[in-house]
């Protein structure tokens, strides 16, 4: 039974829950908008990387660099799309 619950994945799950709890603090405590958003950005990206590395095994084969390259490139393009649009339409720069 024990072999079905590898330490690495159990720890991955525990850390996911911890980071979810940290993210929840922005709801329960009266933080400034900037502080709250910083917490959310940090916890969300740590959790995403946790999933990618621990659960999706992104780095276990020789395709590692192609896989990470593809994912990070898409995240980069995604962020440019999001922030480029915000610059033009919302922040009026």
């Amino acid at each position, binding site marked *: 039974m024990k072999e079905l619950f590898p330490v690495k994945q159990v720890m991955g799950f525990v850390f996911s829950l911890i980071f979810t709890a940290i*993210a929840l603090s922005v709801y329960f405590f009266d933080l400034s908008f900037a502080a709250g958003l910083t917490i959310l950005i940090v916890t969300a990206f740590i959790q995403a990387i946790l999933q990618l590395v621990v659960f*999706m095994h992104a780095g276990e084969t020789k395709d590692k660099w192609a896989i990470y390259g593809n994912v990070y490139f898409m995240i980069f393009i995604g*962020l440019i799309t999001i922030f480029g649009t*915000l610059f033009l339409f919302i922040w009026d720069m």
Partner: protein
Amino acid sequence: MKLDHSQPLEYSTGQNNLNIFGFWIFLGAEIMLFATLFTSYFTLEHRTGSGPTGAEIFEITPVLIETILLLTSSFVIGLGIHAMRLGKQKAMISFFAITLLLGLAFLGVEIYEFVHYVHIGAGLQTSAFTAILLTTLGTHGLHVTFGLFWGLAIILQVKKCGLTPETANKSFIFSLYWHFLDVVWIFIFSFIYLKGMM
């Protein structure tokens, strides 16, 4: 077909390796799909017109239940893949079944949430904000719904054919899809719900 026994079953043929890599490329396109939805959401979130704002309609309890359900399901399918690599077919199928049940529970809470939104006057046509909110949540929910049918098909195939390079490959690719849906939910949870209620 050349089998490489130094690798787990799902990587054991050249075709399998390409299938998995190809699926990562697809996930890259999915990242972009959700990035454009988030772009529209951030652009429109304050255009509430005469409708309600996010802070007025979001409720922490169902959102938290959804988050825990999906996080747990993502962990459980990870255990399923681990069991598959140990060659324990029964344990793997049980983990996959639990994953799908958690996914179904998630979907149930989300459907309740949607009915609730429409009921309190935050439907698809109320304002730019509610339109993009329901579109973004709905696109994710649709992915989960599709995943439920896909996962069921995977379980049936593993039951029928056992653990072969083909079924292991399909199961692993499905697990990638399911983990990805959890990643998307983490961002929805953080930047739509929590940011909206902050």
